[in-house]
């Protein structure tokens, strides 16, 4: 009798995590314009406070999303089934895709840098976003698969 609610709690927590990852990924993407603009103005000793806050928020959000995808978040400590082997397999597939797209993006920037003058540091937020958002969205899609049935 007590087993079913536990399973339902896990189901709800899994769905919530999948949604949260997708939402965080979209928020991170939506910050791109502001962060790219802010990056040009922020220096160690100067720059406007608003730019520093935007860059700080971007870094915090990027790290939070990456950690959420890689570790499963705090809730998975309460529910070990949220970190079972299907989740670990989905995480591995998403991480592999993230590695591939990040390397491709870096190679693309490197080639572009050889052909045209490019201030690469300005595009680092874009590369970071690419390397975090793509696997995060893929992980979210994989996690939604298999929810129906049973």
């Amino acid at each position: 009798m007590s087993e079913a609610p536990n399973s339902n709690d896990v189901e709800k927590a899994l769905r919530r995590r999948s949604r949260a990852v997708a939402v965080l990924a979209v928020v991170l993407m939506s910050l791109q314009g502001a962060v790219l603009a802010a990056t040009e103005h922020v220096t160690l000793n100067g720059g406007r406070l608003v730019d520093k806050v935007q860059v700080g928020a971007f870094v915090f959000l990027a790290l939070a999303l990456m950690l959420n995808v890689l570790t499963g978040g705090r809730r998975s400590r309460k529910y070990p089934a949220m970190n079972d082997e299907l989740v670990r397999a989905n995480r591995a597939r998403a991480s592999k895709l993230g590695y591939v797209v990040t390397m491709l993006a870096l190679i693309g920037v490197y080639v572009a840098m050889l052909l045209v003058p490019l201030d690469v540091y300005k595009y680092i937020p874009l590369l970071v976003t690419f390397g975090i958002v793509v696997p995060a969205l893929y992980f979210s899609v994989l996690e939604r698969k298999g929810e129906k049935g049973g």
Partner: protein
Amino acid sequence: MAEAALRNRLKEARSELGLTQAELAVRVSVSRKTINTVENGVFVPSTTLALKLAAALGRKVEDLFQLTE
């Protein structure tokens, strides 16, 4: 050499015991979704999980999982 496909009789074995996916999931400490994807052949479980499933259903692993050419 072509890789052999894995067929499973997990759903039949579970149904015979009158268990839901959620109940079996709790018995082997995974999510219902994991049971669902194994039953549908979307996810191939590890040896550990296959052994846990067999133990939870009172079957041998080879009764639940077979290779097909």
